[in-house]
């Protein structure tokens, strides 16, 4: 690690995530040298890697990673840490939205969302935490969602998965106290990405580079929870305290 640029080596799990790549590009602007992109679709990852190289990355590596294949995660984490040098940041940017309608009718569809967003993140997060502890420093960042705060009628399958993983990483952050490792949970509102393409714009809809900026600012502050845009902290505080009937009406939109 480097005192000026903080993150010399970054790993993005979910390396095709729009927010993940925006964050990587911003980090490169600040001096990050090496990025490891891990994800399922390695062909697309190679294209993303080329893009990051053109943005100044000295080294970009591509690694195959399937969040649902939890039995492979321990080895994957060992592999990441054996690629030479310490890892300063791991960003868990993977996740699926799933089909809310199907999730309500078919338990298997709902469980699939939980498997990726919740189980997958816990399964890879635990060994990551162990390795980061072992080097005495590093950032472990989970991309959660404002949906974790109060799942809505329209997205509670996704919301439940995020609520679960959010709670787990909040606890992990407390367990990290005094180890030199910084665990941070990021809760973006609606972001214009591949995942939300075609969905209606709701108030405070934001862009990936705004989330990236908030993430990097959070790393500097060693924040525990980052809302993006920051106003979402206030918005969701309000939402959480709305009477259920009113919230149901609000939550039907978007």
């Amino acid at each position, binding site marked *: 690690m480097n*005192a000026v640029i903080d993150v010399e080596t970054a790993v993005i799990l979910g390396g095709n995530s729009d927010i993940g790549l925006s964050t990587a590009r911003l980090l490169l602007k600040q001096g990050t040298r090496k990025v490891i992109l891990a994800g399922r679709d390695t062909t697309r990852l190679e294209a993303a890697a080329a893009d990051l190289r053109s943005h100044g990355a000295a080294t970009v590596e591509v690694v195959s990673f399937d969040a649902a294949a939890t039995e492979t995660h321990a080895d994957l984490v060992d592999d990441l840490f054996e690629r030479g040098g310490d890892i300063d940041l791991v960003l868990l940017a993977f996740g699926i939205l799933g089909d809310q309608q199907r999730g309500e009718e078919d338990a298997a569809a709902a469980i699939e969302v939980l498997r990726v967003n919740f189980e997958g993140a816990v399964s890879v997060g635990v060994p990551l935490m162990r390795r980061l502890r072992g080097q005495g420093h590093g950032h472990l960042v989970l991309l959660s969602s404002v949906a974790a705060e109060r799942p809505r009628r329209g997205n509670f399958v996704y919301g439940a998965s995020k609520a679960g993983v959010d709670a787990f990483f909040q606890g992990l952050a407390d367990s990290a106290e005094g180890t*030199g490792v910084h665990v941070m949970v990021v809760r973006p509102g609606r972001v214009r990405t591949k995942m939300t393409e075609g969905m209606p714009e709701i108030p405070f809809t934001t862009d990936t580079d705004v989330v990236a900026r908030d993430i990097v600012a959070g790393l500097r502050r060693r924040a525990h929870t980052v809302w993006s845009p920051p106003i979402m902290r206030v918005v969701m505080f309000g939402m959480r305290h709305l009477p259920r009937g009113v919230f149901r009406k609000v939550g039907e939109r978007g």
Partner: protein
Amino acid sequence: MDDGGRQVALTGWGRTAPTVATLAEPATPADVDAMLETVSQRGVIARGLGRSYGDAAQNGGGTVALMTGLDAIGELDQAMGRVRVQAGASLDDLMRALLPRGWFVPVSPGTRHVTVGGAVAADIHGKNHHRDGSFTRYVDDIDLHTPLGRMSVAPDRDPEAFWATAGGMGLTGVIAEVSLRLLPVETATMRVDTDRAANLDSLMTMMEEGDGGYRYSVAWIDCMARGAGMGRGVLARGDHATLDELGSAARRSPLRFAPLTLLKTPPLVPGGLVNQLTIAAFNEAWFRKAPKRQRGHLESIAAFFHPLDGVAGWNRMYGPRGFLQYQLAVPFGAEEVIRHSVATFSAAGTPSFLAVLKRFGEGTPGHLSFPQPGWTLALDIPAALPGLAARLNDLDEKVAEAGGRVYLAKDSRLQPDMLAAMYPRLDEWREVQARLDPQGVLQSDLSRRLRLTSATH
């Protein structure tokens, strides 16, 4: 020795990039041997008083051996002016023990609060480098505890190991004890000449022309002055006062050494305290306060050598994000790099208290020893300064191109690919290091960041 080992977060003096390590606190040389046999994969590095600015004495996830428990000062050989001293003793300890007996440390950096082990590992320099060279020139032998066992190395006994250790950043073994040659002095007072220079060029000319007449010489530059006054500074040069130069009162206890800590930095300093306005005001006042030309002024050793030691914890002035010190050395003839560096930070309005400029004399044979004949410039810079990474990377290239280097004891941000250009004997050093530590037991955050040793290379 406490085998349990506390987990502690450590930084260097700049208070950047903390990492957590297991703290070992050896109390005897045998503890050091035992520790070397039991450390984990992440290895061990010795630490003294934590005055390296960057990550030289940190080892995240591994062991950091706090050496300040091994601080015995042995019998002084009055005839030879030589003392055996354990690595954890500080230069302050040495001055307090030896000045009353008429002996001074051969090299004193800007703070007394460094250990002898650290002084060897960084091959430190002081205001007398142009004339006397660096610390390890006065070290007759080193008790080095390597993972393969104890060695006693000297310039004529395994010189390769000795010179790899001199400036080797603690990576050749744990330095446990050294023999140090001292400087005889008649008084604990300095006789100082001060000159003010209106800009960088006149300052450098003054130094070139007059440094030879003084044992000690250093210039402070106001980095925030721009335009015609860019690089204006105050040059302080002097020597140890002789007995007959003291007043009659002082002559009664000429070797009295009683430095005071006058001020204490409050524990919490808001990040905004050090900014362009406060520093510009400080620098202006400081420059105006200095006499334009003064001769033969008598000062205490502490006031002349260690002005900042009077303010405990001054490193906290830079607030929670901390700061770094960029120190470069370039050969004579590369004055342009010095000008360019001062201009870069002057133009950027860098809130840097003071920069220090000095001329180096001959270096030692230390493979990684920093000083080389030429100029050295040291600047304090807040770590939060926007665009700092790119600016310093550009400077690194200019420094390397000119045949110069940056000082590893100050560094917290150099890129590994610059290292070989700055330290051309790096590969030679790596070979010796690998002989003394084939398993790569000696590691630090610095060694990993810069891929210094063969094991991390």
